[in-house]
């Protein structure tokens, strides 16, 4: 069978599975809809959290990023796993003890204020929608490359599936579909990694394989990769170029942001008790770590394979995958030295970096581009980082069923995260804004209907993001983590660990974090992208890492203000005492 029909088969089977699970675990009450009736087993919740967390970005883009960044890519590995330690030790058990439905619920109750609740809802919506946009792009890429359908059709199919199981099943349906999606995605990620590891190093465990010797010569893989890259004018793979302070702040912002992401936090509301919340955070990190420790191995395998299979190879005899990805515009080649061969070197091949294809076909059959050619280097190739994971089975010449499996896995990753995000957005709207703020008297039945219709609205908006992708999707990821780190994380943390933190302090802190981080990112990413380099940054901290500074400012402002404003009421202090007990 061809790759395409196998992909249809795998995607068809997995989608049917998700729908069956959703029908079997429909939600009947608001408690089931928002938090799965608090009846999820810690291991199941660990898997669901892992699927919820590992998005299209983790599955598709992360290994590609690391592949091109080398050691600097470690910020994602440590940042996106280290956050779980904070979550497990500082937030999850207490939030579970608190026992309500949403993150703004906690902030609104702990800071005895509707205003605090609304500020939290605003932060939550900005963070979550930013994130959803990225998932839709992932769905689009997979559909267009592997199923060869129009990106828009792909997005609509994806949205229809998510809509179906989120509206029907609420958190309960999502939880059990996420468990299935975790199994699909982790299997799809590991199988090619194990095969490639065996092919390159003979070691079946990728985590050890990339530290091993190559199968065809007695050199360590990383030593060889460093060597090849330095010969081509790159810096060594295992060295970094980013400033240490920037690496530090990005890692911190990603960790704190991870711990403050509402769709992850809310997963710990779904387990039976405090001990189960702790356990499921542990299991979640185990399930996540399986992928996160494989990713850097995939990254280095892909990088070395990329050079070996295409560097100094005549275009006409170049492997099929090179042309497949060129056809959908994620690879481009410009024969600078007119020798008909593909050459890699350090630096961007063209200006602007992304290729603009003209309709012409070059002498060798390649797609011609109309970008200005960058003559300062010998690099002839543009490769979109997002294709590394999707293409690496093809690059390593693995059988078609593995390629199809990876496509199904990427869709599982994108859909599970999208569903989790859409649910927190809709529960923030139906529960926090409508039920708790504007229309306190509505019945449970009405609230449930409202929750379902807000999922519908959220799905449609997310679908529009997928069909008309804002040009800035890639740039806004920094927003999600930075804002979660600077607003929600410190507010929850102080809410648990400092009884004297009052509403004035918390609200001012969240607003400070929000405004500071938002403006910094806006300034460098959108208003003045030409200034976006270390000499203009505050203390050399990039917009990706500024959320850490935002968090420090939040803590500073909130703690200063609480000293000069009325004290926390006694019943709130008692509530804090209560959540501190198991």
């Amino acid at each position, binding site marked *: 069978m061809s790759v395409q029909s196998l992909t249809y088969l795998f995607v068809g089977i997995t989608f049917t599975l998700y729908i069956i699970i959703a029908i079997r675990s429909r939600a009947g009450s608001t408690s089931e809809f928002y938090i799965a009736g608090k009846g999820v087993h810690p291991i199941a919740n660990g898997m669901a959290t892992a699927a919820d967390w590992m998005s299209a970005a983790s599955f598709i883009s992360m290994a590609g990023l690391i592949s091109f960044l080398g050691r600097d890519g470690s910020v994602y590995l440590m940042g996106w796993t280290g956050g779980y330690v904070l979550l497990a030790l500082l937030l999850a058990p207490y939030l579970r003890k608190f026992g309500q439905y949403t993150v703004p619920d906690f902030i609104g109750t702990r800071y005895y204020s509707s205003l605090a609740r609304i500020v939290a809802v605003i932060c939550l919506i900005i963070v979550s929608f930013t994130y959803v946009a990225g998932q839709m792009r992932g769905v689009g890429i997979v559909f267009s490359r592997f199923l060869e359908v129009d990106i828009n059709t792909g997005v609509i199919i994806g949205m229809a599936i998510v809509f179906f199981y989120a509206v029907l099943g609420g958190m309960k349906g999502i939880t059990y579909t996420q468990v299935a999606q975790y199994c699909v995605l982790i299997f799809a990620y590991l199988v090619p990694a194990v095969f490639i590891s065996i092919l390159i190093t003979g070691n079946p465990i990728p985590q050890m394989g990339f530290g091993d010797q190559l199968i065809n010569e007695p050199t360590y893989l990383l030593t060889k990769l460093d060597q090849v890259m330095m010969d081509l004018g790159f810096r060594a793979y295992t060295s970094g170029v980013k400033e240490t302070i920037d*690496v*530090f702040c990005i890692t911190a912002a990603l960790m704190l942001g991870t711990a403050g992401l509402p769709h992850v936090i809310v997963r710990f509301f779904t387990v039976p008790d405090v001990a189960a919340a702790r356990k499921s955070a542990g299991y979640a990190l185990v399930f996540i770590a399986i992928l996160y420790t494989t990713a850097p191995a995939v990254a280095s395998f892909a990088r070395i394979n990329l050079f070996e299979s295409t560097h100094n190879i005549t275009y006409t005899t170049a492997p099929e995958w090179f042309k497949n990805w060129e056809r959908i515009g994620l690879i481009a080649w410009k024969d600078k030295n007119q020798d008909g061969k593909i050459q890699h070197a350090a630096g961007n091949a063209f200006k602007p970096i992304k290729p603009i294809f003209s309709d012409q076909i070059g002498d060798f059959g390649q797609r011609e581009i109309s970008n200005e050619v960058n003559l300062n280097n010998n690099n002839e190739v543009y490769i979109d980082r997002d294709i590394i994971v999707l293409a690496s089975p093809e690059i390593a010449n693995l059988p078609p069923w593995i390629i199809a499996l990876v496509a199904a896995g990427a869709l599982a990753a994108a859909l599970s995260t999208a569903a989790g995000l859409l649910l927190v957005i809709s529960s923030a709207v139906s529960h926090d804004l409508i039920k708790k703020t504007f229309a306190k008297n509505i019945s449970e039945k009405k609230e449930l209907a409202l929750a379902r219709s807000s999922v519908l609205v959220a799905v449609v908006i997310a679908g529009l993001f997928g069909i008309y992708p804002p040009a800035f999707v890639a740039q806004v990821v920094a927003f999600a983590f930075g804002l979660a780190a600077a607003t929600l994380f410190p507010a929850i943390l102080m809410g648990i660990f400092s009884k004297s933190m009052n509403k004035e302090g918390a609200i001012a802190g969240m607003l400070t974090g929000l405004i500071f981080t938002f403006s910094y990112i806006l300034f460098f990413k959108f208003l003045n992208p030409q200034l976006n380099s270390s000499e203009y940054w505050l203390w050399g901290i990039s917009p990706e890492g500024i959320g850490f500074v935002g968090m420090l400012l939040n803590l500073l402002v909130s703690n200063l203000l609480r000293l000069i404003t009325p004290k926390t009421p006694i019943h709130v202090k008692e509530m804090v005492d209560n959540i501190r007990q198991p």
Partner: protein
Amino acid sequence: MDKFAENRHQYWRSNLKLVFSLLLIWFSVSFGCGILFADYLDQFTFFGFKLGFWFAQQGSIYIFVFLIFIYINRMKKLDEKLKSITNKDE
């Protein structure tokens, strides 16, 4: 302070101490070994990896998992202790 409040206070103190020491390790393996001292550690080799590189891309993640499980176990013991003391007092 009554006995009940005293026990809860004790429980919270032990909890804070535990969390603080685990976070100290959390900080030293990631920000310490993986970032601040990565270049220095890179002179040592560990199963074919430069050590700093290994901490940044593998080691810190394993230790994170380990830390959470220590926390789960210690807290379970603390919970049980609190429960047994409270029951005895009643």
